[in-house]
Structure formats: C-alpha cells, structure tokens
C-alpha cells in the first residue's frame, strides 16, 4: 500500500525566512510525485509533478526536488500570500488509472 508522510504538520515563518517542507513516500513503483497548494475552503491547486530522482522544478519562490524516498518543497524568501496548506501525493504503478495517494498536508503560515 502506498504511503505518504508530510512533515512538519504546521510551520510558521517570518516573511523572508526560507525553509523546506518534507514529503516522505513509499510506493511500489513511482509514476509521479505531485505537489498541490490548498487555500482554506478551496480545492487544491496543482503546482508540480516530479517523475525521477534528481529532478527539480521551480515556480516563483517555490522549488520542488525529488529523491528515491522523499521530496522537498523549498520556499525561498516567503511572503504572507504563500500561506496555505501544501499537499504531496504519489501515483504508483498499481492500477491503470491516475489514483493518487495524498499526505495530510503541511499548513504554512507566513507572518509579515
């Protein structure tokens, strides 16, 4: 059974204080690791997909990296508008459809 563990559960940063969010995973065969951002009361918004160890992707202040066991979402010089819950999910080889297994999320608060 695929498993995804995200840590820490919550993170409070000062504006401009860079940090990283962790996503550890166990899958039978990785077909993609996905990062989403979710604002309160809204549906998750797609950020990145990573497919193989060593892959990196960037978008504004966010950079996602992938190893064989975990992924990191690095946030450089965060701003208050980066406050949200960040979800990690994995897709495995089992089954023919895009069934993603999600972690519980990391709630990020950035203080001005």
């Amino acid at each position: 059974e695929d498993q995804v563990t995200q840590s820490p559960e919550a993170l409070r940063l000062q504006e401009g204080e860079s940090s990283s969010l962790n996503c550890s995973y166990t899958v039978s065969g990785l077909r993609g690791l996905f990062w989403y951002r979710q604002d309160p009361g809204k549906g998750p918004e797609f950020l990145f997909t990573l497919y193989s160890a060593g892959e990196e992707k960037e978008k504004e202040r966010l950079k996602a990296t992938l190893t064989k066991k975990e992924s990191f979402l690095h946030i450089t010089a965060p701003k208050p508008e980066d406050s949200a819950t960040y979800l990690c999910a994995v897709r495995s080889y089992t089954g023919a459809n895009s069934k993603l297994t999600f972690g519980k999320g990391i709630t990020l608060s950035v203080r001005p």
Partner: protein
Amino acid sequence: SQTIHQWPATLVQPVGSPLSLECTVEGTSNPNLYWYRQAAGRGLQLLFYSVGIGQISSEVPQNLSASRPQDRQFILSSKKLLLSDSGFYLCAWTKGSSGELFFGEGSRLTVL
C-alpha cells in the same frame, strides 16, 4: 481552457436525508473523473473514479454512490446520510497519462 464546476458549495443536511452533489467539466472530452473526501486532520480520501459514461469504481465501502450519466458529468449521492458523511467533497479530473489531477472548488457538507 478546461474548467470544473461543483455545486452546491455548502450544504447542511439532517441525518437520514438524501444527498446529491454534482460536478461538471468543460473544455475537454472523455476525462477521468474522481470524487475525493477531505476530513479534518486526514488526507484526501479517494471515494470513486470513472473512466467513462456509466463506468464507476468504488474505493471505499460506504453508504455513498456515484454516477456518470454524461461524459463530463459526475454525481455523488446518498439515500440516507450519516453523521460521519460530513466533510469537504472534491471533484477532480484528469486526462492522458500525466496523472495530474485538477480539482473543483469543493462542496462542504455538514450532517446534523
């Protein structure tokens, strides 16, 4: 561009009453469609997915059901709601082999 709509956005229902949540995707054809539930402190839980009209796969045994009467329409139903059915319900779609899910805005269900 593709868009996904869910309604109603919020719903308060008594125990034992029926439920119908509706989801429609625009701007694409033959998408894979999904219903997820997000409960407080838990990750996103896949409830149902569909790869075509009339084709429904259930991931978790429960008193909910899903139907896909049209290519871009996905409906989540219950004949009698339980207190444990309360949560945030998300519809999502994907197409092709990328595995990236795109979510609707969600429907908040409170069962009293």
